[in-house]
Structures are given as C-alpha cells and as structure tokens.
C-alpha cells in the first residue's frame, strides 16, 4: 500500500495537566512508530474555545499531529486508544494525501503555464500585456 498522509486532531479537557497531554502524544508516537508510520508534525494549540459544547466543556486543549503511514491499521489503533483515554473528549483523523496530490497537480500546472507564457508571447509581439509593457 502506498504511503498515506493523515491529519489527527484531538481535544483534551481543559483541566488536563500538560504532562498528561505529553504522555498522550508520546503514546501516539510510540504506536505510530510500531506500525511503521512516522510523525511529520506535532503542534499543541493550547486551550481554546470550542464552537459548541463537548462533554459539557466549552473549552478544550487542542493537539494536532500530521502523520504518514502505509498501514490503515495504525489509524484504527490510534482512534481506539484515543477513544478509551479519559482526558480526550474529541478526536478526528482525516486522510489528506489525495487532496495534497491534487494540490500538487494544480501547482505543477500553474508553473508549466507560467513557464509557457513567455515562450508563446515571443513570436507574436501582441501576445501578453507584460511583453507589451516590456517593449514600450
């Protein structure tokens, strides 16, 4: 299976001590490496207001991770662990590689088009406004 990119966001109770959060992150790291995945990024957004109440909480401690894995089993395992861990009140995993591929394609296309434009404009002087501006 090809490598996939995932985003994992989870929210802890706001009264969770920092050490507890670090322990959770370490747990995720450990589980990821044992499944042959790797963590690209870890961000602790800290306590922020949630848009709606979750488990009677209005605020939550957000943690964001970006990870790569070839095994879908890893996500299943991570979600199971997050579900059973007490301080976590919400979590979400999103698969992003396909969107990133699409984005890459768009960037490539734009670059190609940008590269092509001056070449196209060269034979005909009235090709692009940039050329006209440069000529005058």
């Amino acid at each position: 299976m090809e490598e996939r990119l995932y985003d994992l966001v989870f929210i802890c109770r706001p009264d969770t001590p920092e050490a507890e959060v670090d322990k959770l992150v370490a747990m995720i790291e450990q589980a990821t490496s044992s499944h042959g995945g790797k963590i690209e990024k870890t961000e602790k957004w800290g306590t922020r207001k949630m848009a709606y109440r979750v488990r009677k909480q209005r605020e939550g401690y957000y943690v964001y991770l970006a990870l790569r894995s070839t095994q879908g089993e890893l996500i299943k395992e991570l979600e199971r662990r997050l579900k059973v861990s007490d301080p976590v009140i919400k979590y979400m995993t999103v698969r992003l590689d396909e969107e990133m591929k699409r984005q890459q394609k768009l960037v490539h296309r734009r670059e190609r088009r940008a590269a092509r434009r001056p070449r196209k404009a060269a034979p005909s002087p009235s090709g692009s406004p940039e050329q006209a501006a440069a000529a005058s």
Partner: protein
Amino acid sequence: MADQSAPQLSGPPQGRPGGRPSGPGGPGGPHKRGKRSFVRKKKVCRFCVDRVDYIDYKKAEILQPFVQERGKILPRRMTGTCARHQRWLTVAIKRARNIALLPFAAEL
C-alpha cells in the same frame, strides 16, 4: 408572388399571441436599466485571487467569513466564490465543524 409571400413572412411575429412584444413594442433594455439604478459589483472568488490550492480546515478564521452567524455555509451567490473553491470550502467547513472549530448551529 411577392405579394403573397410578404404577408406570410410578416404575419407570424405580429400574430404570436403568447410572445412578448419583442421587436417594436418593448425596447426592454434601456427601460430596465433606468429602473435598476445601481450597478452590481462583480464579485470575484477570493481564493482564486489569492491562488489558493488547498483550503485548510484548521484555519477557522479563514472559513469564518463564509459562514453565517448561525453557522450556515453561505451560498456562492453571496460570497462570489467560484465553483471549485466552494466545493473545497464546504469540505473544509464540515471538517472544522467536526473538530469544534466552527459551530454546526450556533446558539443565539
């Protein structure tokens, strides 16, 4: 021959009962323009202007202007977003809702 064919040709446009008096009766353009005194500004897709290739669900402050106060997603006709970006935007907003960055329905 010419006498016969001329009335036939001119007949149908005048005799069309249901149709609006298109030709001579209603020069609708100028009349309407007079009534509509304001000129609607052409809305441009903000994501196209900024050359956005991926709308990040994590940046709630970017998504915020595209939802109503109650949390509804604003239609394209209100925001001027292009079809492609609106499609990405809805996905991003729905993801943001899932992780409580945006409300499903804000209480007022």
